[in-house]
Each structure stands twice: as structure tokens, then as C-alpha cells.
């Protein structure tokens, strides 16, 4: 098993506004990089005041808005030998397959992938998902709205957990 691959994240949500929020939080921020590295100030700042903040481990990310697309994406990723590390999954995605069905099918295909159920609705309890998409250490429940720090923290921890597992 390759241990040097860049982790892959999959975000599934039918609300394009939420997808946009995911993009702002999880994609590398061009605005921040542009502003903070204007005129090459980062190098001068480093010279004047010491080391800047360490760069985060990079990840690749895919955004989808329908459950069936997510199932297919997971399937093709496994077939390509480049499976997703974690999936952020909405629950209500009318008119197609809902998050519960997606989680069930994904878990059947990939027992290792981390799934984060991100929902603003309490149709299903965590226990319901645990039954069909467990185990508990690979299933996280996050209520909406998306809190960026928490989201990035969860993404980081899952990537690190997966990497650390792969190293063993």
C-alpha cells in the first residue's frame, strides 16, 4: 500500500451555498496567500522576525451534489487504487439518494474510509448511521452550520489518523 499519496477528501451536499462554504474552508485559500505574500513580504518577515507558521499537509478535494454521484465516485476511486480518505456527507439531498443510503453503500465498498455526516436535520440519529456505516472510529457526526475551524480540524485529524494507520 502506498503511504505517500496525497489524501483525498470528498464533499457531498446538494446545497450549492454549502458547497461554496466547503470550498472556502477546505480549498487552499488564494486570497489569504495573495494578501499575505504580497511583494514577497513573507521572506522579509521571516528574515526580520523568524520562522513563519508551518505549512499544512496538502489534500485533494472533490465536490459533488448528488448521492448517486458520490457512490460512483467512491467506486471508481477504489478501482483506480486511489480511494478517498474521508467523505463529508449531507443527509437530505432530494430528489436523489439520501446520505443514509450513500453511507450504507459506501461502507460496503470501502471499510476504511472515514465518513463525516454533516446535517442540519435530525431525520437520523448517529446510532442509525453507526449501524450501517460504522465502526465508530470511522464515523463522525457534525451538525450544520459548518464551523470552519472545526471542519478543518476534523479534516486534518482524519487525514493524520489515516496516515498514521497506514504507517503501521
Amino acid at each position: 500500500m502506498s503511504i505517500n499519496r496525497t489524501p483525498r477528501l470528498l464533499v457531498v451536499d446538494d446545497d450549492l451555498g454549502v458547497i461554496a462554504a466547503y470550498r472556502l474552508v477546505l480549498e487552499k485559500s488564494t486570497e489569504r496567500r495573495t494578501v499575505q505574500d504580497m511583494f514577497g513580504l513573507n521572506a522579509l518577515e521571516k528574515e526580520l522576525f523568524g520562522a513563519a507558521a508551518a505549512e499544512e499537509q496538502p489534500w485533494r478535494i472533490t465536490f459533488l451534489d448528488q448521492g448517486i454521484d458520490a457512490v460512483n465516485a467512491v467506486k471508481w476511486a477504489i478501482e483506480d487504487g486511489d480511494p478517498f480518505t474521508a467523505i463529508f456527507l449531507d443527509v437530505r439531498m432530494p430528489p436523489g439518494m439520501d446520505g443514509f443510503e450513500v453511507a450504507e453503500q459506501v461502507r460496503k465498498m470501502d471499510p476504511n474510509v472515514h465518513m463525516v455526516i454533516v446535517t442540519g436535520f435530525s431525520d437520523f440519529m448517529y446510532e442509525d448511521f453507526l449501524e450501517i456505516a460504522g465502526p465508530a472510529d470511522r464515523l463522525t457526526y457534525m451538525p450544520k452550520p459548518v464551523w470552519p475551524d472545526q471542519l478543518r480540524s476534523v479534516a486534518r485529524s482524519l487525514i493524520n489518523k489515516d496516515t498514521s494507520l497506514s504507517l503501521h
Partner: protein
Amino acid sequence: MRISSKINAALFGAFACGTLATYVVLESTIKPQFDQIERSAAQLNHKRVTDAFEAFTDKLKTATHDYAFWDETYSFMQGEKTEEYIASNLTPEFKTVENLGVNALIFLGADNKLRWGVAYDLETQEPLDNMVEEIAHFSRSHAYIGGSADQAKRGIIGTSKGLFLVAIAPALKSDGTGDPMGKVISAKLLDVEAAKQLTGVDFSLEEFPQPVNHASLPENIELKTLDERIQTTSVLRSIVARPLVYLKVNSPRDVSRAGSTAIQSAMLMMITVGLAAIGILWAFLERTVVSRVAALKEHFATAGNSGKITATPGTNGTDEIGDLARSFNSMAGQVNQLRDALADSSYMSGLSEWAAGTLHNVRNGLSPVTATTWQVQQLFEGPWLKNIETAAKEHADAATTPDRREKLNTFLVGSAARFVEAAKKTTDLTAKINDASQAILDIVAEFESYAHRKTILEPVDLLLMFKTVAASTIDVQMKDTELILPHASAIITGNEVILRQVISNIFVNAVEAIEGQQHRGRIEVSIATSGQNSALTRIAISDNGEGLESDRLDAIFQRGVSTRNRATGGLGLHWCANAVKVMGGSIRAESDGPGLGVTIILELPKYEANLKEAA
């Protein structure tokens, strides 16, 4: 096909079959008996005629034998005392035959010569020409007849004057001994009318059609059934068995006619009685079955068309239809209860779904806000703001080397430009936050428009509704709580489903207020016209629970305030107050203080014929 039509068809079908079967049985069994009796009677009539002829000849025989078996006649026939015999016994001639009741009396000697003979028409008293000789000739031609005592005969012979009854006997001594000395013959014209009178039978004697075919003549009595009569025919034969004429006897068909009449009368009676029985049975079925089933059908159809399943009044009677009506009423009660429960559940579920859906949209809408805000935060994240502050301090410090000051200067100028750029980005991102916030406001506006949607108002029977709600709240939750409902109801204008939720909420609060009290619980409902506005109905729901302080009477209807911590949840009095307001009513609470119970007072518009939709 209606049930009454089926019953009619069945009754008339059964009756028609029964009538037809009876008719066939009567015609095939009874009628032939009548016909047989009639044929027997016809044959009896025929025999009666022939018996009458026998009786006539029997009289002739007696008269003939009186003369034939007599010593004086015996001597006379031998030629002795002729004059004397004639004078004393045969004179005057007409009187002799008239006294004997015959037309002719003839004495033939042993040598077949006429000793004496006369023939008269008894009515005209005129002699019958040639009749004596004709009869004598017949006797001579058939010498054996009357040739001896055992050959004495009687019968009929045909003559030129018609049929004659004759008796021929040998002339013997009075004791019947001696050689026959000739024959004594008496004859009488066959009187058909007299025979008819004697027998009471209508008959006729008819000549054979010429030429006579003896082979075709019937041996026995022939019976022919005609429409009005039965005709029996036989051949009347002479004393020497020679066919003479047909004897045709007509017998009326009275018996078969009486039989047919009897059968027809019986059938008529049966039809009359049967129709009457059908009428009575139909009336009975109409009253006990058809009309009641029709009423039930009408009731079911009304329930089916209107969707309102009310109890049928047709529960009288202990039969199956009564049982059916009672079962329907029981089922209707259960269905109504279930429908109410379903409506309540659907309403609650709808509210829950609506609220949850709105929350979902709000939560989704918040995600861009939090993300964009985070993005703004990220612009100023890191050590660079603190480094600007440090650089400014160092730049102002005289101890800073020129070279470092120059670099600090460059850094500060660059940072100023970077800060300006960050401020611009922040402005852009703030606009995005505003847009995302506006989206949330749109969701909330939609929520509000839904909350203020029009509520369909309808007439609501208060007492009926209280009973329904009580069955599912007080009865279930606290069976030892006494519920006192008013005797009279009132119809108000409202939404029954919403109002049931309001009343249910008030009842549940009352039950919980009663729990833990020492005395027995009591909830009393009263309905009256409002004292302040006659267009409103005042509903007071009082409990003897723990009561409320006066300063909390208004607060319990405010958002977020609960009378207690209910595990069961519920819509709460705040929601109730809004719902009642939507229906054009009001709600308030009264209490004399802790321990003295609470009275919730609802005022709702009385029902008016023209319903309106509440805004």
C-alpha cells in the same frame, strides 16, 4: 339490481313455479280421475238404457207367460173351446192388448197356423195393418224360438212399423208340462221417449249406414269423448242376434266440467291467497328488511360522499340488521376517533416537518456565513499584524541599526499595502456575508409567510370536540380525574384540528397541575355566551390543581415560558395563544392563587352561516 326487486323476483318466481306445479299436478292426477268417473257414468247410462229395454221385455215375458202356461190356453191351442176362450179372455180385442200393455198378442198353433192374433196402435186404437202376420212370419222363420219351455225368449225384432219388443213362449199346461201346443207371442212397439223418461238418459237409435258392413260393427260399447258430451255407441241386436240399429247414448260432461271448475277454482283461490301472502310477506320484508337496509345504504352512501361518518339511527331491533347498524355505529365511532387522532398526528407531524425543514434551510444558509467570516478571519490570521506592531516599535527605537530600520521601513510600507489589500478583500467577503445573511432572511420570511397562511375555518361542535379530546388526554392520562362537561353544546367558528390541539394542551396542563394534589382531581368545562361580546362564545376550563400566582397569569402565554417541565413536550400555551388569535379568538388565565386551581378562558366566534378564512 335493488334488493327489493330481487326479493320481488324471487317471490314471484317461487310463486309462479309453485302455481304451475300445482296446476300440472291437478291436471295430471285429479282431472283424469274426474274423466274416469265421467266415462264410467257414461257407460252406466248406456247400460241403464239397455237395462230399460230388458225391463220392458221382462214385462212382456210376464204377460206372455201368463197366457202361454195356462191350461185353458193349452186347450185353446188344441182347438178346444175356442169360442168360449176367445169370448172370455180375448174379447174385446183392443182391451185385451191394452190391459196387457202390449201392441200385439198372437197365438200360433203347433202347426204354425195363426190361432188368434191382434195388433193395435194403443194411442189411436187402430189396428196395425199386417203386423200380426209380420210377427207370425218372424216366429215361423225362427221355429226354434219358443219351441219348448227352455226356449222361451224375449228381445227385439225389426218390423216395417219399427222396432218391437217381443216375448215368445211355448203353450204349455199351467204346471209347465205337456208338449208345446204352439206359441204365444206378445209384442210392444219400442217407445224411445218412454225409455228416455224412465232412464233419464238421452239416447237415440240410428240406422246403420247402407250397405251394412257387419265386420265394422263394434262388439262392445264404444266411447267417444266430445267437447260437451260423451257418446257411447253399441249395436242393438235382435232376439236372434241380428244387428238392428246403433244405440247411441249421450252423457253430459258434467263431472269433468265440475272437475275443471274445481281445479280452476282451486287455482284461482291459490293465486289469490298466494298473491295476498306475497303482499303480506313483501310488506313484512319491506318493513323489517328492505326499508331498513335501504336506510342503511342511504346512510352509508351519505357517509361515503360527504366523508362524515355519523352514527345511523337504525339500531332498533334485535335482528341482524340492528346488529349491523350497531356494528357500523361502533366502527364509525372508532373511525372518527382514529381520523381525529390521525388529523392531530398529521397536524403535529406537519408542524414538526415544517419547523425541521426550516431549521435545515437556516442551518444550510448559515454555512456560507460562517465560512466567509472565517475567510475574513484568515486574512488577518498569523503573526503579521503582531509583526507590524513590533516593526513599528523597532523602527521608532533609536537603537535600531540603519540597515534593519531600512528593512523595517520596507516591511511597514509593504504591510500597509498588504493591509489595504486585506481590507478590500474583507469588503468583498463582507458583501458575501450580507448576501448569505439575506438568504437566511429569505428563509425566515418564507417561514413567516407560512406561519401566517390562511387557516380554514369551519363550524365546530364544542361538546363533541371536548369529548373526543378528553378520551385521548384525561381518560388516558388520569383516569381518577373527574371531568365535568356541560349538557348543552355550542357551535363556534374555528379550525377543529387546531382547536383540538389547543384544548388538548389545556387539558394536559390541568392534569399535570392536579398531579400531586391531595384531593381528587376535577376539571370542569362550561360553555356560555361571552358577557362582553354576544358574537363570541366563552369557554371556561377550570381545574382544582396547584394554581398560579397572579403575576404569572400573563407570563404563561409568553414564548419560552412553560407551566412545567414536561417530558412529553407539546406545543405550549404560547402556540395556543397564537392559534386562538388566528381563529379570531382570545385566551387568558385566571387563578385565585397557589393551591386554588386555574381557569383558562377561551373566547371564540360563534358559528355564522357565511364562513370566512382567517388571515
